[in-house]
C-alpha cells in the first residue's frame, strides 16, 4: 500500500482558493480517483465529481500536478511517487473544491447538437462492416449497422487546456466545435451542412482558435478537436473562395 501526500485545492464560490493536505494509503494498482476518494473519506466536505470510473461519463476531470486528466483511468504508477497536487479544471467557474460549473459548457454542446451515438463503420478488429441482422424487441430482425456512443465524453478537459478560453468568454471551445464538426461530417443534407458551417463561421467560432493544439494533446479519448477545427476552417475557406468566383 503506497503512502501518498496529497494537496487538494479547496474553494467555495465566495472564498479564496487554498490547499489542504491529506496523507492517504491506497492499493498499488489504484487509480487517481481512488486517491481522491481516500481524501474524501477523511473529509466528507471535499466536493468532487465522479460516476462511472471508466472514462465514459466524463464527470471526474481534474488537474493532477497541473495536467488535465480523467483520474478514473490514470494509474498511480503513471504519477510521480510520494506526493500529488489535485486542482479543479481551469476556465470554468468553481462550485466547490474540485467541482466546476459545467452548465455553460453543456448549453454550448446542446447548441452544437452532436448526436451522442455514431454508426460503427468498422468492426472492432478494423475490417469494414456489413450491416448486421439485429433483433428488435418485437422479435423481428432489422438489417442495420451497429451503433455506439461517440468518442467524446464531454469531460471539459479540452476547455481547461485551451489558452484562448483563458482570456475570452466568447469562444465556442474545442469540444463544441468538434461536435459541430462531427454533425457536419455525419449528415449528407446540404442545407444542414451549410447551417453547421455557418455556426462554425460565427464570431467565437473556428476563427478564434489560435492553434495551440493543447485540446488534442490533453483529450483522454483521442478525439482531436484541433484537427476538427482546422478541418472546418478548410471547408469554410473552400466555400468562401468558391463564392468569390460565383460558385
Amino acid at each position, binding site marked *: 500500500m503506497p503512502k501518498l501526500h496529497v494537496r487538494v485545492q479547496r474553494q467555495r464560490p465566495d472564498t479564496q482558493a487554498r490547499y489542504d493536505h491529506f496523507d492517504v494509503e491506497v492499493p498499488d494498482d489504484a487509480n487517481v480517483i481512488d486517491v481522491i476518494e481516500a481524501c474524501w473519506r477523511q473529509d466528507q466536505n471535499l466536493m468532487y465529481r465522479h460516476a462511472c470510473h471508466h472514462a465514459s461519463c466524463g464527470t471526474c476531470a481534474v488537474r493532477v500536478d497541473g495536467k488535465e486528466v480523467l483520474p478514473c483511468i490514470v494509474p498511480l504508477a503513471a504519477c510521480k511517487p510520494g506526493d500529488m497536487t489535485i486542482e479543479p479544471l481551469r476556465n470554468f467557474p468553481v462550485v466547490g473544491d474540485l467541482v466546476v460549473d459545467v452548465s455553460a459548457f453543456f448549453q454550448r454542446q446542446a447548441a452544437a447538437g452532436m448526436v451522442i451515438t455514431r454508426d460503427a463503420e468498422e468492426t472492432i478488429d478494423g475490417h469494414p462492416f456489413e450491416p448486421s441482422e439485429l433483433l428488435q424487441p418485437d422479435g423481428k430482425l432489422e438489417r442495420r449497422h451497429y451503433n455506439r456512443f461517440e468518442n467524446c465524453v464531454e469531460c471539459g478537459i479540452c476547455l481547461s487546456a485551451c489558452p484562448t478560453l483563458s482570456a475570452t468568454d466568447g469562444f465556442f471551445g474545442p469540444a463544441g466545435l468538434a461536435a459541430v464538426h462531427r454533425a457536419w461530417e455525419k449528415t449528407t443534407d446540404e442545407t444542414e451542412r451549410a447551417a453547421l458551417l455557418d455556426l462554425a463561421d460565427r464570431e467565437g467560432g473556428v476563427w478564434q482558435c*489560435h492553434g495551440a493544439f493543447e485540446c488534442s494533446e490533453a483529450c483522454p479519448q483521442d478525439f482531436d478537436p484541433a484537427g476538427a477545427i482546422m478541418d472546418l476552417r478548410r471547408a469554410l475557406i473552400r466555400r468562401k473562395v468558391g463564392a468569390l468566383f460565383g460558385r
Partner: protein
Amino acid sequence: MSLHSTNRARPRKPLQWIDVRNRRTGMWAFALNRVTGLGLVVYLFLHFVMLSQLFVGRAAWDSFVALARSPLVLAFDVVLFAGLIIHGLNGFRVALNGFGLGVRQQKAIFYGLMAVGAVLLAASTVLIFTI
C-alpha cells in the same frame, strides 16, 4: 435553483497565455508567438520614438546612431531579430494550419521552421556584429 444551472461568472486569466508548465509543443509555440508579438509591438513603438529624433535635429540623430552601434544595443538587435524570426516563421505555420494544411504535422513543421530560424539567426548575428 439547481446548483449547476447558476451560470457563475468564469474567471479570466490571460496570464495562462504564457503559462507553459506541463504543456506541450503546440502551447510552447502559442506562448512564443504571444511573447514575441508583444515584444515586436513594444519595439515598433521604440522605433517610432527613435525616428522622431530626426525632427529634433542632426545632433540628436547622430548621438542616437552612435548609441545604436554600441555592443549592448547590437545584442538587443539580435534578440529583436530572434523575435522577428520566431514570430514570422511560426506565424507561417499558424496560417498554414488555419487553411487546414499540415494540421497533423504541426509539431514537425514547428521544429523544422525553428531549425531554419536558428540558422537564419546565427547568420544574422554574425552580420550584425561584423558590418
